[in-house]
């Protein structure tokens, strides 16, 4: 009962005129920042942090959390309409969102993403409210072996994502992980893999550089070459009745992915250093694995849009949990929020719930309001985003190239990275010609910086004994499941061959 009373006070605080106005502005700004290729919630929160010093801490954190929420909704927009993930959290949304847009069903993809995000956010809010302290202590028991086992599980799902050509999928994963290792060895601090002795590589290769190269430049070249410049597949019609019918279809064909994403996203989100990207990827993989029609995934399945979108919203709420209760950020965005809290004179940690009750519950209350505001604002803007697809392709294509290049620079501020985007784009075009799956490489470059240090720390803990991944109660089962998943395509192939030999 006490929780409900605190929550009611928090919601009332979030509904105060100033706070409510900040939620509306924050969600709208976040939606547009999230929709820009190269810019995500982390950029929005970082850039607008100084503005929040003008208002009290309660209002400030509510505003920043609203931006975070809006950006999570917005990431899906560029994934669907442009085929470029707005942020790493929306990579998996591209897999089915883009095919739906190319079939002239962008509205269905966007409505599915909005509804799934809403459900994901709501489920996470309820779980957050009810189980905050208990879940925080569970997440704290995850050490490097458990986190590496989770990463291994994520890579195992890549093998399933890559289609039938397993060697090419494995190549793609390894390439993404090696590219993530370029720059400096974070443990010894020594330069590593400075390719061709070019100094620019000392800064490493960011996820966004590869993602924009592959999905911005490479994808556009591929589309123009394949369609011989006559792209006619995107001609969506938008009416209120059509959107209502899309909403009905989204609920019928996307409910399973929504629930899978909502639950997996939250639990992955609360793990320190994991965040929404692995959550959305794992949700996509699990939804595909549990689906009765896995062949629809990658070809425009509403479940394939719903699972990652529900997961990234759920995880963004989840990642606030270790930040508030333990003072450990669950994602880069929450790391900035944590910095803001320190500047506002608050001390994140277990005592925050006791000492700053109004602040904490005001924030939790704002999650509920922001989630509703984000759904309404997002649905209201869908016709605008779909309108973009009605533009002639000879206008849309150069706009996508421009957004890719300017967004790439905004994210990295480096000409070296712009050249890399062009090189990756050209390479992606040729690799795709020979059926190399590129999504696993993009996802691997995101997870590489988490996977490598946790592997090395685990091996250091065990004095080099890899059994540490098998004999711990949480890491063991996860590792075994991951290995089974990696071996599964090979086993399937053997069984198919045996069956063919019998016949």
């Amino acid at each position, binding site marked *: 009962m006490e929780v409900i009373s605190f929550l009611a006070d928090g919601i009332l605080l979030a509904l105060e005129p100033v706070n409510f106005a900040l939620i509306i502005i924050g969600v709208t700004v976040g939606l547009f920042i999230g929709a820009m290729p190269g810019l995500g919630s982390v950029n929005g929160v970082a850039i607008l942090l100084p503005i929040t010093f003008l208002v009290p801490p309660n209002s400030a954190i509510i505003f920043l959390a609203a931006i975070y929420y809006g950006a999570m909704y917005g990431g899906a927009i560029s994934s669907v309409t442009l085929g470029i993930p707005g942020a790493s959290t929306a990579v998996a949304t591209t897999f089915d969102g883009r095919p739906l847009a190319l079939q002239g069903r962008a509205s269905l993809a966007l409505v599915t993403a909005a509804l799934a995000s809403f459900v994901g956010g709501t489920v996470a809010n309820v779980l957050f409210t009810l189980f905050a302290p208990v879940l925080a202590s569970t997440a704290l028991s995850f050490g490097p072996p458990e986190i590496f086992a989770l990463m291994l599980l994520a890579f195992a799902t890549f093998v399933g994502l890559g289609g039938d050509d397993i060697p090419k999928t494995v190549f793609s994963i390894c390439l993404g992980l090696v590219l993530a290792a370029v720059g400096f060895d974070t443990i010894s601090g020594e330069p590593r893999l400075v390719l061709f002795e070019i100094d620019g590589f000392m800064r490493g290769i960011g996820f966004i550089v590869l993602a924009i190269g592959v999905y911005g430049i490479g994808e556009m070249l591929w589309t123009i070459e394949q369609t011989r410049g006559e792209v006619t597949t995107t001609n969506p019609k938008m009416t209120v009745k059509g959107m209502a019918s899309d909403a009905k279809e989204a609920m019928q064909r996307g409910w399973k992915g929504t629930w899978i994403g909502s639950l997996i996203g939250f639990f992955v989100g609360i793990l320190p250093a994991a965040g929404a990207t692995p959550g959305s990827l794992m949700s996509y993989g699990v939804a595909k694995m549990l689906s009765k029609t896995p062949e629809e995934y990658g070809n425009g399945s509403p479940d394939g849009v719903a699972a990652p979108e529900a997961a990234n919203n759920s995880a963004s709420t989840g990642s606030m949990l270790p930040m508030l209760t333990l003072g450990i950020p669950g994602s880069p965005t929450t790391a900035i929020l944590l910095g803001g809290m320190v500047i506002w004179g608050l001390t994140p940690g277990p005592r925050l719930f006791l000492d700053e009750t109004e602040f904490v519950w005001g924030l939790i209350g704002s999650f509920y309001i922001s989630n509703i505001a984000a759904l309404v604002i997002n649905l209201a803007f869908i016709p605008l985003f779909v309108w973009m697809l009605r533009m002639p392709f000879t206008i849309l294509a*150069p706009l996508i190239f421009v957004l890719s*290049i300017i967004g790439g*620079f905004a994210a990295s501020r480096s000409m070296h990275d712009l050249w890399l985007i062009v090189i990756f784009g050209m390479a992606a*075009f040729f690799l795709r010609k020979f059926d190399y799956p590129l999504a696993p490489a993009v996802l691997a470059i995101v997870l590489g910086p988490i996977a490598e240090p946790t592997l090395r720390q685990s091996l250091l803990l065990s004095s*080099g004994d890899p059994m540490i991944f098998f004999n711990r109660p949480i890491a063991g089962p996860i590792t075994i499941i991951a290995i089974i998943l990696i071996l599964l395509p090979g086993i399937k192939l053997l069984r198919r061959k045996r069956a063919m030999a019998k016949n």
Partner: protein
Amino acid sequence: MRQGEISLVGLLALFSLYLMWKSTELPIGYIRGQGPGGGFWPFWLALGMLLSCLASAWNWWRGLSPASRSDEPLMDAFGWRTLLYVGGSVVVFVALISIVSMYGAVAAFLFYYLRFLGRHSWFLTLTISILLPIGLFFFFEAVMLISMPQGMSFTQPFFDLMYDIIY
């Protein structure tokens, strides 16, 4: 396509070998008291890349991949032209940034693409090529506070004028 696939596999295998060699600049084994060396992770992953290439070559030899069974050329004349006109224009776009600034390069690229590849009217071409870079300027420089490359010194009067409007 058949010849193209094995050539690509060969190139990727060479790149994998290069990455393995580069990784050995740092220790690739286990160092007592310090854990795996800095080259450990990339070395074994690059080896994974090399083994994947060998498996792909094996699949190619047995004719298991679609490309290995195809006698069609990699691309026809249209494909190569597309790559040259579109891909080449993106390369020129990026090269122009250091000379005429990001916004100048955006304007030039849009003008080229809309007018010469898209064959749109002069009115539409000029409207988009002029208004979009100005809109992007206000979004990035005024709202997001992100400074884009300003090119060579001759672009400065333009930036002075625009900054006067913002501040």
